[in-house]
């Protein structure tokens, strides 16, 4: 009698917790965009309409206003890249498509546009490091965004936890308990993939001025190593005090460049 009562109480608690969690999740997800000033959805719609109408200035301004609200969105970067290119801003366009690639790594439109704009760049540089540097696993992980891998790890962990829970609540499933317990390697592998992807350098930006001078250290007092033309893709690996980025090129060259000469979409 007592045992049945305890089980029922546990089941009710579990149900209540699940409901509370779902409520919290939905509330947080809905309130996230509203945390910014203005109506981002309306602004995005207005920007797209302006672009379709050929008003590149307004479209660019609206997209940039969304950027100013702290929104980091691959589709926003992609649209900005198109708008920048139409407006003749090659460097900004390359930087925007590179930024979109971080969040939409398998988007075919972005890949095509990035190839297209890189073809217009004077410097013979690629927008990715050689495979020998990143490794095959890392190269494979580049097909996924951090967000995707985080959700994958989270959902796999939830599935595993649910299976474990079922083995606890259903005596008939107790014989599967060991198998379920061993399958913990799946969410752990997903978590490892997420952490590896997060540690991988992917802050690719591009030169946005006609020419950018690359120095051996953060400051003009250092030796000028080489110069890059507008649109040259660079991997930003570090930011130094004084407004200088440490950059790495696909051919292995490295140096420091003033941060106003290079643009990066998304966080470093």
């Amino acid at each position: 009698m007592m045992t049945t009562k305890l089980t029922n109480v546990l089941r009710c608690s579990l149900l209540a917790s699940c409901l509370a969690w779902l409520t919290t999740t939905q509330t947080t997800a809905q309130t996230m965009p509203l945390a910014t000033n203005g109506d981002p959805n309306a602004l995005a719609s207005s920007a797209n309409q302006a672009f379709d109408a050929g008003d590149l200035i307004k479209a660019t301004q609206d997209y940039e206003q969304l950027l100013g609200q702290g929104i980091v969105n691959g589709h926003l970067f992609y649209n900005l890249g198109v708008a920048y290119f139409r407006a003749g801003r090659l460097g900004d366009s390359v930087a925007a498509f590179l930024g979109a690639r971080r969040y939409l790594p398998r988007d075919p439109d972005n890949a095509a546009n990035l190839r297209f704009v890189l073809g217009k760049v004077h410097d013979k540089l690629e927008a990715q490091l050689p495979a020998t540097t990143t490794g095959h696993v890392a190269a494979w992980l580049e097909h996924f965004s951090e967000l995707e891998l985080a959700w994958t790890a989270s959902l796999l962990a939830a599935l595993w936890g649910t299976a474990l829970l079922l083995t606890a609540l259903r005596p008939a499933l107790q014989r599967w308990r060991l198998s379920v317990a061993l399958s913990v390697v799946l969410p752990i592998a997903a978590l490892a993939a997420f952490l590896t992807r997060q540690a991988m350098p992917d802050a690719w930006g591009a030169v946005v001025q006609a020419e950018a001078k690359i120095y051996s250290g953060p400051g003009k007092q250092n030796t000028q190593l080489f110069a890059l033309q507008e649109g040259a893709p660079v991997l930003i690996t570090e930011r130094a005090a004084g407004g200088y980025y440490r950059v790495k090129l696909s051919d292995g060259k490295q140096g420091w460049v003033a941060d106003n000469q290079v643009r990066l979409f998304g966080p470093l």
Partner: protein
Amino acid sequence: MRPNDFMLGMAYALLAAVALAATPCLAGTISAELDHNEGGVGEPFVLTVAIEGAREGEPTIPQVDGLEFHQQGVSESTSWVNGQRSAQLQIGLVVVATKPGRFTIPSIKAKVDGQEVATLPLTLQVGADATGQAQNQSPNQAQNQAQSAAPNQSAPNAAGGNAKKQNANQNQAKDDGGKTGGVFLDRTCDRLDPYVGEQVLCTIHLYHRGNLNGGQRLMPSSPDFRRFPIDGEKRAQKLVNGQPYIVIELKEVVVATKPGPLTLPPYTIDARILTWTKRRNPIDKFFNNFGGGAFNFDMNFTEEQEVNLKSEPAEFAVKPLPQSGKPPGFSGLVGNFQLDTHLSQAKVTAGNTVTITITLSGAGIADSLGDVVPDLEKIGKVYPDKPEYTEKVVDPSGIVSKRVYKYALVPANPGNFDLGKVEVPVFNPHLQQYTILTSELGHLIVDPSKAEAKSLVVGQQAQLPGTKKEDVKVLGSDLVDIHHGPSLSKQHTITRSLVFILSLTGTFPASCAFLIFGVQSLRRRSEGDTVGKRRSRAYKVFKSELQAAQVQVAAGHVETSLLAAYAALRTYLGDKLNLHGQSLAAREVEELLRRLGGKEEDLQRLVQIIKTLEQVDFGGKLPPLTTASELVADLDRLVLGLEHA
């Protein structure tokens, strides 16, 4: 002191003694000579007086009306020849006539080796002016003679400020008061009126009489000229006014960077020359040091001295490049160049790379030439490589440079393409006109790529007879349009709130599972405690219930007593095995007793007792009191045995 040093010192001392003894036996000589004996008024004649031997006093220079004598330098040297000491004195004099006429320089006398010696008289024929005579001599010759006459000093200014008369193409070392040890240099440039960017070859002659012990060329930088030394040197012997000189010929190429009157800095050499020194006379040194413990004999009679040799700066009148005829796109390339182009292959598959090599080579500097990429974007993508540049300075061509451009062309579409031509405008200073170097790139046949070829084959197979299918021609390329569908305002980054959600999602079910596992574990532990407690106090309960039975037996209540004893046994078994003891049947009790273990005879007795108790319980068949009393006592003993078992 080492024995070897001592023996060496003694040997030097012996040699010195022999030499000193031999010196008085040598006869002293004096000689005088003029570099030339015909000239004009104001023209310098170089008179050299040479005295060999130990002189007493200085020679007397005579006074001649109409002639001025200017002493320019004195050279004194001592040498050892076959162990004999020989002292030499050379006095250089410049003689300038102040009026025309025939002059005789009388004998110059001196006392040498204790004897009075004199030169022969010399005769000079002086004309009305210097030009008539000077025309018979090349200016270079005049200067060289002046220099050689006074080898301890540099010559041009020894000629009495006649440096201005020298050929504009030539400039020589200035007099430095004999500090250069008779070593001097001059520089001659091919031309002094080149075009901007035209290379001019300059030849430098370094004269010495075997006393040059090395040196280093210095190339003073100039914003007006780029200077390129030519490696290597030529050596020759040259008689200058009867004196043998070793001449080292060096060369440099200079290129003016701007038009106008420009001054080329002097050619400069930091030279190391050998000069005689008295202080290191080995004999003096020997006797000075003898007994001092040094015995440091040194037979090096010369001392090395560093001197800075300079030519005169050269004045250039650099001409600008002509404006007329300047072709569009002219980048300032000056020289005599050739242009060559090369295709790595004349036939290529679409999508593969063909390398175009453009080579510009020739005499001149091409380091500043810009890009010469032809317009090939209509054919495919062009990837320029970094141009290679090499430059050599060779004699006698001067600077020979080579610039190689490489372009990787990746044709996009199949077809037969005329790649056009490459044109490079250049100014040729020898022809004094602009020319356009042209080279045809030729034709490139681009085959369809494998994928395209395959599709063509499929298309050909599928086509109907009489229909002709063609590839879809690519007319242009553009960006893919913007994304309208997806939300632009949704965050794609991992925010803190998202981290919270993901963590909760991932960990909540597992947390619940672990919670349930914990509760179940606690519950099992709690149940286990109850059973254990019941088991531990089973015998105690049995004893208390059996005592009640014993009391009943003592009171003579057989039935009550035996029923109580049976109940006590079943309670004990129930407690012990965690069962409901009172519902146990006789057979079950027997089985449980066997599970508890114990001796077989005890078990047999217990089974017998249980059967008796069963008969009392269900059959109402009561045993006698004594039997009942024994039965209760046996039960107590047997259960105690079970408890211990």
